[in-house]
């Protein structure tokens, strides 16, 4: 009710014009900036990418587009590079989980009772990575992890351990990128979990204490269920965006290598499009990613609706 009334108000002047009989323009006017932005920057490119995925083209305006039907898809699905990229995408997502959900959740719950200066120290520590620009973070990590002079390897050396080529060794590069992506995320997730945890009505916890629940039981039976909407939200964000978040670090630090060990679907389609200028492949890879993640998003949303508890 209130919405319709709110948007109708300014139409008074417009309705007086004979040229616009009953058409209620005002709501569309208000929506226009958002709608136009979404259409121009999301849906039009999506449709265009969908079209391009059936063509072979090298992005030069002068060169002809050649219709190839489903050949791009057929080719991609048999390409080992694509399989590796899809597998890596899954590894990125799974690898991010501990740092985007599990550790922040634990940190938020176990630091809730911190008071005074300790609280500020911990907050600063946990939130600093969040405010550093991704490219800066990538460069700082490249220095830290440098095989010859990086602090981490120097430390390993003094401990009598082997030096590790964090970004050069195919066995470590993927894990390193996941770590950097996750390190950047922990602050954000902890912030969200802390806020959600702090907004749990303290009398639920008091009631549980009166019922004889221990600290652990209170976390298991009261806090976690009441935090479940936030847990689901962050899990969903990790699944949907986790692999995208690592793009900057792949691009700056490894370029997908060594031996393609750090390539994921987003880097691959970017590489096809703007590296080798094969727009057809790039678009087809994009469509595959889009279809996959749409299905996952749909599933996640349904799950969220079923699991969330409404507190009143």
């Amino acid at each position, binding site marked *: 009710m209130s919405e319709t009334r709110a948007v109708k108000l300014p139409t008074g002047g417009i309705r007086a014009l004979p040229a616009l009989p009953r058409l209620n323009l005002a709501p569309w006017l208000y929506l226009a900036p958002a709608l136009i932005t979404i259409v121009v920057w999301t849906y039009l490119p999506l449709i265009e990418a969908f079209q391009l995925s059936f063509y072979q083209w090298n992005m030069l305006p002068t060169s002809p587009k050649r219709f190839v039907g489903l050949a791009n898809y057929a080719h991609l699905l048999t390409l080992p590079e694509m399989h590796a990229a899809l597998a890596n995408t899954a590894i990125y997502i799974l690898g991010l989980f501990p740092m985007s959900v599990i550790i922040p959740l634990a940190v938020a719950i176990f630091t809730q009772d911190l008071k005074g200066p300790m609280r500020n120290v911990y907050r600063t520590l946990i939130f600093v990575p969040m405010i550093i620009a991704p490219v800066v973070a990538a460069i700082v990590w490249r220095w830290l992890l440098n095989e010859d002079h990086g602090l981490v390897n120097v430390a390993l050396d003094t401990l009598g351990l082997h030096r590790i080529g964090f970004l050069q060794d195919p066995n470590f590069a993927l894990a390193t990128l996941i770590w950097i992506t996750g390190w950047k995320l922990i602050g954000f997730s902890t912030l969200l979990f802390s806020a959600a945890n702090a907004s749990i009505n303290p009398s639920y916890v*008091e009631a*549980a204490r*009166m*019922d004889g629940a221990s600290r652990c039981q209170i976390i298991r039976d009261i806090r976690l*269920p009441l935090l479940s909407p936030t847990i689901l939200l962050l899990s969903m964000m990790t699944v949907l965006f986790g692999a995208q978040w690592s793009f900057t670090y792949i691009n700056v630090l490894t370029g997908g290598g060594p031996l393609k060990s750090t390539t994921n679907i987003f880097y691959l389609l970017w590489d096809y499009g703007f590296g080798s200028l094969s727009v057809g492949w790039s678009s087809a890879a994009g469509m595959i990613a889009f279809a996959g993640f749409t299905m996952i998003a749909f599933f996640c949303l349904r799950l969220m609706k079923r699991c969330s508890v*409404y507190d009143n």
Partner: protein
Amino acid sequence: MASIRISSLHKVYGKTPAVRGVDLSIGTGEFVVILGPSGCGKSTLLRMIAGLEDITSGVVAIDDVIVNDLEPGDRGCAMVFQNYALYPHMSVSENIGYSLKVAGVARAERDEKIRRVATLLGLDTFLDRRPAQLSGGQRQRVAMGRAMIRSPRVFLFDEPLSNLDAKLRLQMRLEIKRLHRELGSTSIFVTHDQLEAMTLADRLVVMNGGKIEQVGTPQEIYRRPASLFVADFLGSPPMNFIPAVIDDEGKAVCADGLRPCPDLIWDLEPGAEVRIGVRPGDLQIVGRSARGALPFEVEMVEDLGTENHLHGTTTGLRMTAVLATGEAVPDHPFAVLIPESAVHLFRERDGARIDPRSVSRIH
């Protein structure tokens, strides 16, 4: 069932004192109501007994065992919160049975107990619902059930009825009274509603500013308030107060030289400032010429159906008198008289009640 002993209990939040030296003994099976204005420390006192609030100094003992350092769950107390605090993600039966689940009671036994409690409270048909799907009264009942199921030694209530409408409040009040009679558990009930306090209490504790003002049966406290604060706080409409000064004979003289109770003598030094208190219902309507009568000018009459409230002034002071509906409001100038047995007198200096010499002789 248990007895509770509280001695010189203090609570300080940072620098603000909330409870300032409370001593109280509660017998087994007693229903004690703590009454006081907002912010006087009632909840704080209750939460210290429950174990939800740290004790700054003093002792809380249940059945002669000091429980200061015991976890709330180990004290054998159950609490009904003002906002009920039902777990929103659990069904009614899970809410009621949570304490048993935590205690590791087997499922079958748990279900059996839940059913018994639910039947007692008329909740059988709601067991699968979530708290959000219940009305206020039903939630209140679930909160009661959750408190009852462990057969606690002590029931603690923190204004459990204040979120209900007037009718439901009366109904739940009677229900709590009935349950107390059936279960016989020691109960402490915090409220700022006088009616609740008067009707529920075996013993009433009136608190003010973190201290106990008076302890006694509701009747004792209503009839012989020990201080100006208690006299003013209890009763509706509130007690009338007339400032007066004690003369050389020990009699009270108020403004204009009127003596409202000419035959009473107090053992107070001449010149002592006092306040005479009288409940509106105790005032008698008399002619202006009667001895000790105070001329009364009516300003407004409120008809409450069962009685009339006459609001007006006496010697420039506000005063309220209550008349039964049957009695006509006089249409000629009249006065009010304070019967000797209805006089309360308080020393202005400290608010203490002082009984007249003659009355003390009678008692």
